[in-house]
């Protein structure tokens, strides 16, 4: 079961989904929202296939995932896990993505960033889910505990 302490940053924060090819060349992409199955340690990242081609190829190839996520408060975590497969996005997923993207548009808009620029980042709708099962969790908040594994 995913620890409660990680859930706020997981659901409300910004994440980056990292992968590596079989010849150990890394890559990453930015999900436009996620869904979480807390009981079963599952995370599904919503991405745009054309923007995540390299990561999808890597995940189908090597299978290992690093999902870094955090809040503006600097609280951050890293979920390591095993890729399970692509997931077709349903209405609930798209609704979650819209909520996430809207919150990002509002937050970045409040920082005075141009609306067109923000929309280029968060205005697009994801078309596929990449699901993985979390097997290790590391604290990433800057400070003496950074890098410590969180047992769960």
């Amino acid at each position, binding site marked *: 079961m995913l620890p409660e302490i990680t859930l706020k940053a997981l659901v409300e924060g910004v994440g980056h989904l*990292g992968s590596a090819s079989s010849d150990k060349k*890394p890559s990453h992409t930015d999900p436009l929202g996620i869904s979480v199955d807390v009981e079963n340690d599952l995370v599904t990242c919503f991405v745009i296939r054309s923007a995540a081609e390299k990561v999808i190829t890597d995940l189908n190839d090597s299978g290992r995932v690093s999902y870094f996520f955090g809040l503006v408060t600097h609280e951050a975590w890293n979920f390591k896990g095993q890729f399970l497969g692509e997931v077709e996005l349903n209405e609930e997923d798209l609704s979650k993505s819209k909520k996430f993207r809207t919150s990002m548009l509002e937050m970045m808009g409040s920082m005075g960033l141009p609306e067109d*620029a923000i929309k280029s980042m968060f205005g697009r709708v994801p078309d596929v889910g990449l699901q993985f099962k979390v097997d290790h969790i590391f604290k990433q908040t800057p400070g003496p505990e950074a890098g410590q594994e969180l047992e769960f």
Partner: protein
Amino acid sequence: MITDEHFPALQGMFPSWITTCSAAGEPNTSVISQIWYVDENHVALSNQFFNKTKRNIAENPFAYASIINPSTLGMFNLELEFHHTEAEGDLFDEMEMKLEAIASMSGMSGIFRLLGADVYKLTSIKTFR
């Protein structure tokens, strides 16, 4: 090759993120304060406390990083290969001063301690959006 269009994304206004991979094939994604311009074919990353990144690079020199232009939010993806570390000199001093400024502005003074300036060769830079 780094050109004028990339410079705004190398000013540290937005955090950058980096993914590395261990010798065993385990990826690791992390966020860093800034990626520094060294010359048109090299950039530097601050070695602070992201030990997993450092360990991975010691095993496997390849890294993938993203930088963002703060005005347009245009993103560039960089394929990198570790070259060497500098623990003193102009580049190190500049990075240390900037990091302390970032740290004090974000309430993390004393935590963002620079251990070294890791210089990477730029293998490719691509416009993402």
